[in-house]
């Protein structure tokens, strides 16, 4: 469904214009992002790299609507999310963003199935439809045999795959992943990366992944580096 402009390049799904952000630490103002401008095309799989404190997670949080910039606008699918209020932003996240965190962030008291179903509680779907969709998502990540397991009964790699199922279950516009392999061993990390790759390639999901691991970044289609609050040019990975 990627719409294309006259030149044939896919239309951007995200436009980031003049975004800046600073934090206050004690008396001191610490600039994190300074006048960031870039677009992300629909169907893109972008890796954001940079050293610790470079502002890559901050940028991801801004794009995902978890935080608001000091200045600038972030337009996702035609909506400037910096203009939304807290409740509006929550509703927007529910419809448009799928999250994958470094430490999975699953609810320990809910089963894999219930965790995946969680974002669907915010939709108008019936109980049966919710269940069916959650099962489909779990099947997609290869965990059909673990639906009734609690997080404490799953390995790190399985936990992250449950988290990925949760991120895709509501068919969001954008999947954001913050160091998705950061807490995993190499093998599990590979599985997660290949899963993300498949989601992008086969299902056309737009993914932004923050990582400091060059190997993980290679799984993406393109890479941008962030250093001292400034963004490098897009580098396409050879697939």
């Amino acid at each position: 469904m990627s719409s294309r402009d006259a030149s044939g390049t896919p239309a951007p799904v995200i436009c980031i214009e003049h975004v800046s952000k600073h934090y206050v630490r004690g008396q001191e103002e610490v600039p994190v992002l300074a006048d960031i401008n870039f677009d992300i095309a629909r169907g893109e799989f972008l890796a954001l790299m940079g050293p610790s404190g470079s502002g890559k997670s901050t940028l991801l949080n801004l794009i995902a609507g978890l935080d608001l910039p000091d200045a600038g606008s972030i337009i996702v699918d035609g909506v400037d999310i910096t203009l939304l209020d807290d409740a509006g932003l929550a509703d927007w996240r529910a419809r448009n963003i799928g999250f994958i965190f470094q430490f999975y962030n699953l609810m320990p008291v809910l089963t894999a199935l219930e965790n995946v179903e969680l974002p669907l509680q915010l939709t108008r779907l019936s109980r049966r439809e919710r269940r069916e969709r959650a099962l489909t998502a779990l099947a997609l990540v290869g965990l059909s045999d673990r639906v009734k397991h609690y997080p404490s009964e799953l390995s790190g790699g399985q936990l992250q795959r449950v988290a990925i199922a949760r991120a895709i279950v509501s068919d969001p516009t954008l999947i954001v992943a913050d160091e998705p392999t950061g807490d995993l061993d190499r093998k599990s990390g590979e599985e997660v990366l290949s899963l993300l790759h498949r989601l992008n390639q086969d299902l056309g999901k737009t993914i932004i992944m923050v990582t400091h691991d060059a190997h993980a970044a290679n799984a993406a289609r393109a890479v941008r580096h962030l250093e001292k609050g400034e963004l490098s040019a897009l580098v396409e990975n050879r697939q």
Partner: protein
Amino acid sequence: MNKIPFNYIWRNLLTRKLTTALTAGGMALVVFVFTAVLMLDAGLKATMVATGRPDNVMVIRAASETEVQSSIDNAQMSVLETLPHIALDDTGKPMFSRECLVLYSLVKKDTGVATNVTIRGTGDMGLALRPQVQLQTGRLFKPGSSEIIVGTNLAKEFKGVEIGQTLAFARRDWLVVGIFDAGKTAFSSEVWGDAEQLKQAFRRPVYSSLIFQLDAPGNFDTLKNRVADDRRLTVELKPETQFYADQSKFLAGFISVLGLTLSVIFSIGAIIGAMITMYAAVASRTAEIGTLRAIGFRRTNILIAFLAESLLLSLLGGIAGLAAASGMQAVSISTMNWQTFAELAFAFKLSPQIALASLLFALTMGFLGGVLPAWRAARLNIVTAVRSA
């Protein structure tokens, strides 16, 4: 309708079993005290109200709140007996009973302590006016004799009141010839004998009270106004039910005020306990709250979820407390009614209203204990909360 699944709320309570049990246990204790007080109050009122019948009228001297304080001389008694609207029995006899009341001390079986009991002088009509009074064993006292019958509560709790035994008072020996059951009424804690005999023995020139049945309940006000206008009479008329309810006012008020004050003070402790538990829950689940917010749940969803958790916790406590208190229904209490100075036995009485009030009391504690932690959970910064995983 909150969107955070109930399973999430419920299982979080189950996960921290010990904390949940201790916090709910604290609340259960408070609810137990609260419920027990209400049950005691209800039991006392039920006993006193059941003692009277709505179509009976009690006449006592004006401004004397109890029969023991009251006296009605023969002249006034004669005027009263000729009042209109007094019901007639099958044989055409007016249904009134002159009664005299005295207090006498008897020794309790379990404590060995002497306690005041009411001795009521009455007659055939006195029994006819109170159909709730039934002879259980033995026979009724004969008119004009020194025979007495005793109520079941008295027979159970006091020494020397079995059939065939005698009580020595007013320089006579009084033979116990029967035991009567008056259900859960104050009469069950009384001794009854012939009014004329008791009056003479105690050298009383006057009666204590007059009780009569109205020909129609609607005539009470007419009669009351007529008595008020009659200058020969210095008496007060009350429906019997109201008379007995008034008699327990002080004791019921004392139990309620003391019990409810204690409950409220205890409840502060339980509320603080719930608050600590819920603050700890919020602190240990900061990352989960951040994640829920990131996924798209609103602040209000989080607020409601944590408030619901606290309410559920208090409901568990409430149900436990109520269950324990309902066991108190088997317990009967015998104590002095300070208004009549006589022994009165009554039981804890549970009603749907009391059960509802107790659960609402528990939920109020849960709400007060949970609202600040829930507010805090709802106000957490998403970015920092998510990172605390």
